[in-house]
Each structure stands twice: as C-alpha cells, then as structure tokens.
C-alpha cells in the first residue's frame, strides 16, 4: 500500500491536539473519568495505554497483508487482550500499590475505543513506521488529556500534585473533585473549553484566510 496521506511526522503531531482521542474524537472517556483522581494514577494509566497501543499497532501493521475482512475485529481484539494482560501482570509485579489503585480499569483498556479505532483506521492499512508514529502521537494526546483532567481534580481536590502538596495548608480540599461528580463536571467543562478554543481558532483562521 502506498503511503498517500499524512506522513508519520504529521500523524504524530495530529494525535497530540488536532485529533486528540479524548477531546476531539470523544473516545476513551471511561479511563479519563475513572483514574484521573490523581496525577500518579493518571500517568500510570497513560503509560499502560501507550504500551498497549504501540505494541498492538506495530503488530497489526506487520500482519496487515494477511488480515481478512471478517476476522479483522477478532484479530485486533485478541492482540489487544494479550498486550493488556501483559501490561497488567507487569504492573502487578513491579508497581503493586499502583496496580491495586487502578483496579479493574487496566483490563478495561481492552475495550478502550481509542486502541481498536487506531488499529482499524490506521495500523491495518499503513506501514509499520507510520503506524508506530501514529500510535505514539495518539498515546501522547491521550496522556495530555488525562493530565489536564487529573491536574484540575488533584489540585482542587487534594491540594497535591503528583502527591506533593502545592496548595497552602488553609486550602479546604474540594472533596467532590476526587469523587465521581467532580470527574464528570471537570471533563464536561474542559471539553467545552476545548471546543470554545477550537471555535475561536477556526474563526480566526477563517477570517484571516
């Protein structure tokens, strides 16, 4: 297959903001809400998703010529499930405390729409290099999204950042931020903010052009 379309560099950059999996494609919202109570858990989750996404993309890209239409999804699912199991076991072995905190959300990476979507859209059609850079870009974009939600929730909710105290002692912790309602509200408002910024930029580039 010829590489018509964006180059690997472009794909990488696209994944960061223009095609951000959470803010633009609205995929992968379950972990974005669930593990963003603190930066530690959020970044661990981002790392796990990155590992699975990159490995799955590379593998899928390697076997892309052998895939038949009906069995595509099956193969993707099998691959992703295997890598998620490996990631889960690695976490349990080397970061036991963190794996306990993340709980059931690591295996839920299997049904994370981001990964299946990238495999389907990109990796099964493009070469390994492009697939890999696409995966890296999307993972970073996902990590950025998680970081944005997690910082707000952690700083307002516990007064800490990565576990280190940043707010003054007198700050009354907004407990609600660390609980489900805070997650929904934060993501909803940040989504609105992202849309608003996007609309402004469009208008600017629209009027400038």
């Amino acid at each position, binding site marked *: 297959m010829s590489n018509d379309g964006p180059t690997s560099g472009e794909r990488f950059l696209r994944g960061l903001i223009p095609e951000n999996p959470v803010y633009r494609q609205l995929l992968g919202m379950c972990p974005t809400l669930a593990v963003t109570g603190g930066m530690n858990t959020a970044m661990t989750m981002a790392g796990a998703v990155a590992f699975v996404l990159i490995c799955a993309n590379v593998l899928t890209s390697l076997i892309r010529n052998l895939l038949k239409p009906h069995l595509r999804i099956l193969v993707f699912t099998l691959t992703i499930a295997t890598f998620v199991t490996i990631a*889960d076991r690695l976490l349990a072995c080397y970061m036991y405390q963190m794996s306990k905190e993340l709980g059931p959300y690591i295996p839920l990476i299997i049904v994370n729409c981001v990964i299946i979507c990238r495999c389907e859209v990109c990796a099964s059609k493009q070469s390994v290099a492009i697939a890999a850079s696409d995966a890296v870009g999307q993972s970073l974009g996902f990590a950025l999204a998680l970081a944005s939600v997690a910082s707000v929730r952690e700083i307002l909710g516990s007064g800490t950042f990565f576990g280190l105290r940043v707010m003054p002692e007198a700050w009354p912790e907004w407990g609600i931020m660390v609980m489900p309602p805070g997650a929904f509200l934060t993501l*909803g408002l940040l989504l609105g*903010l992202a849309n608003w910024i996007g609309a402004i930029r469009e208008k600017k580039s629209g009027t400038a052009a």
Partner: protein
Amino acid sequence: MEHISELILVAVSAAIINNFVLHYFVGICPFIGVSRRVDMAFGMGCAVTFVITIAGLLSWIFTYYILRPGAPLAVLVIGEGADLSILSYIVYIFVIASSVQLVEMYVRKFFPPLYKSFGVFLPLITTNCAILFACLEIMKYVAVGKGADPWGLDTALVLAIFGGVGFTIAIVIMAGIREELDYCDVPRSLRGAGITLIVAGILSLAFMGFGGVDRSLKEVMSPAKAAAVAVDDDEEYIGAPTTMPAAKPADGDAGAEITMKTQRGAVQ
C-alpha cells in the same frame, strides 16, 4: 433468608448505590451517544441488560470451572496448583463477543419487532465497558483465595442483571433530561458531549445520596442478635446489685457482644 438478603443487597448495590455508569464510569460511550431520546435509550438499556446477563452467566461458568486458581476442570487436566487466571481477559472478551452474536441471532429470529427497536445497537455493545466490567467483578468475587466463599451462579447473575438495570435507569434518566435540554439555550461549545457530562455529574451527585443504604439495609435484614443476658447461678448477695449493670450498647455487628465475654461455655 440470609442468602436472599445477600442477593437483595447485591442487586440494590449494583443497580443504584454503585451504579455502573454514575459511580464506576463504565459504559460512558453509549451513555453519551445514545441518550438523545428516551425510546432509543430504553432500547439500548434493554440490549445491554440482555447481553450482560448472558455474558455474566458464561463468564461465571468459565471462571468457576476453568479459570480460577484450583478450578475443578483445570485441576483435572493439568493437576494440582493449576492457575489459568492469566487467560481470563482473553476468555472474557471472547465470551462477550459471542454473547453479542448469540443475542443478535436469537432476537432477530424470534422477536423481529424487538430486533427492529434495539437490534442496531447490538454490535456496538461489544466495546461497551460495562459488560467487561461486570465480568471482571464476577471474577473478583469468584477467583478468591482459600478462606472465602466464591460467589455462586445466582449472586453473579443478580449482579449482572441489576448492573444492566442500573445502566438502563441511568441512561433513561439522562435521555429524559436531554430531551428537555433540546429546548434550552446551551452554549455552543458545550453542546453534545459537554452538557451531557455536566448533567451526568449532577446525576452522579444525586446518586451519591444513596451511599450507605446498603449498610442500613443489611442491618434491617439481619438485625444484631439480642444481647444475651449473663446466666448466673451464683447466689444472691445482700446489699450488692443483683445484676451487672448494663454494659455499653452492643457493637453494631451481629452477635458482637464483646463485653459479655464471660458467658462462653469454656469459662465456668
């Protein structure tokens, strides 16, 4: 009676107190995508409940008999100490995919009008976190080490069904609200996913009010055994109180009479 009350607790907890969508954040994608109209939402909810029941049933069977450490069939084939739990996630995802296929075939064949109303959602459900989450919860309670009883099929099914029911409740409420929101002036940047998430946040806040209901339910259904009075065959004493003064109220747990330790048969 004990067992029925445990089932009721699991049901209420899964459907309302620890609602899958509003507390555990699973099933958000369909929650946002399919909640524009009440009838569509209800259809999606029914589809999810169907699939989650079948998937729960199958995953319990696999986990109990094959996958957990020390499972009967695994021990039969491999020997003592068989632990196939590493294959759990792959098995579950296949179970879910097959359940979706099964339900789709079954409904299309036997209930065409039903298929018309929610059949289109079925393929989407394969990537629905809620179903995999139900399977993972079942695994958590079935693949326990020695010392605890693994959940039976009835408890697992109750969890699955009422998890689906909870999802349906949440998504229908959301659909009702969104239908009203259509007439409101939502800021452009918040339209769609933004406002849905904010409303979900308020809903989740409301559902937090149910927290602790399972504790109270538990106490109502299996009240703490009445404090046993010290059986005393000692003689009466002149001038001394004839009974020991009432100890502090019994510790909340059933049968926990710590202060009256001396009634036990061993001590005489």
